[in-house]
């Protein structure tokens, strides 16, 4: 049973998004995703300043098993990336919703997170 926090929003492609009080949105991959991938060995994220379209590939998460694309849950500009993952990608396995975050976006549409799945809807997908 994977952990699906109630206060987050989710994309069908297994990224989560958290609307922060400063108007940015933090993005990572879900507990279900990290568990399916197994030991994560490499995370590639875009540069700060990159602009992403909704659904666009923004990076790669690689495990011993396979490399998988990461998809932007919404359009926006990258304002921060988690540089710690470069040397410690296994953080995503250990703490997918906290220390394992991947990037922060300034969303093009401030309400974009609302159109993502809520925890109950995502639980049906990743139950």
């Amino acid at each position, binding site marked *: 049973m994977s952990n699906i926090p109630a206060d987050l929003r989710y994309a069908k492609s297994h990224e989560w998004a958290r609307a922060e009080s400063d108007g940015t949105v933090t993005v990572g991959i879900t507990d279900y995703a990290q568990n399916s991938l*197994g*030991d994560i*060995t*490499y995370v*590639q994220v875009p540069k700060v300043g990159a602009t992403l379209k909704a659904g666009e590939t923004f990076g790669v998460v*690689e495990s*011993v098993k396979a*490399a998988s694309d990461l998809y932007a849950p919404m359009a926006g500009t990258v304002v921060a990336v988690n540089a710690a993952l470069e040397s410690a990608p*296994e953080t995503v396995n250990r703490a997918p919703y906290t220390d394992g975050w991947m990037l922060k976006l300034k969303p093009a549409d401030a309400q974009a997170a609302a159109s993502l799945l809520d925890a109950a809807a995502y639980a049906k997908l990743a139950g």
Partner: protein
Amino acid sequence: MSELKRTPLRDWHAAHGGRLVDFAGWEMPVQYRSILEEHKAVRRTAGLFDVSHMGEVDVRGPDAAKFLNHLVTNDVAKLFPGRVLYSPMCYPSGGVVDDLLVYLRGPEDFFLCINAGNIDKDLAWIREHAAKFAVTVTDRSADYALLALQGPQAAAIVQSLTGAKLGLVKYYHFIEGTVAGVHCLISRTGYTGEDGFELYHAAGDATTLADALLAAGQPYGLELAGLGARDSLRLEAGYPLYGHEITAEVSPLAAGLGWTVKLDKGADFIGRDALVAEKENGSRRKVVFFKTGDRRIVRAETPVLGPGGAEVGRVVSGTLSPMLNEAIGSALVQADAAPQPFDAAQGRPLTVDIRGTKLNLQIVKPPFVELKKH
């Protein structure tokens, strides 16, 4: 997954958190907790693997030694009771049918351990060639379970469960004895590069033995280890895996296993003519081992590019070395493009393209990590 074959420990794995996957038609645990952590446990303390999917074959009869020396490339005549031999067996072309362990239990009494994915093919091959010899070939694969306990603490753990004097059993030797009350062929062999044992025992005893080993190993830091760690451990040690470094098209000479090919053993063997010619003329392609200094895994089938950018071969195995924290692997490349390890000419290195990033392959003589001398 209903058609997958199961070892006697399938439910035991599930109960211990094993993640079961299809491996060569077998439902096997790829990992329990973490491939990387299981790998490190084997290098630092000990790991317990179920490798009961491996095949076992009895070869018995007056011609057994003569037959096996015809079948395999290494020299079976060097064996004495209690000694184990690693050898490829080849096609007439020099390509490999399989690699196996040969155990000499007593006069005219040999025991083979073969790869799970090759059991049917190997048995057909062995039986076809046995027809001209006074031997009986018996498939014992279903009768045996096989547990491998590997790592620097393996000997202490097994010793705590047996009266057999393991100190007298050297690397690539075996004895018969009881471990936790279970009769075992206790073989000081493995596929990790570490000290350790492979315990062949009756399939019906597997859970008894697995429980006993796990309990005895707990104070030593023993971890259950799956096939994921088994693969990264063998690659770090530089051991070949059938279907990767050795195949029907890649001879032991091309794979860097020349030490297992005894052209002058005084017995003709299948593939000898082709291997003599290959040794004389040089292999057309060679297996090289590499690391990249980067964490991105260079996966099997990735094209290997020569200094001019043309494809000169393909990666055959690739993973992240949990000990080095960088990508390691092996590649089958055109011999004239294969640099030597530590060659100063690596100013013109082989490269791979990983999602648009060009990475140099640093050619390495394995093992990738320092292993204790056996």
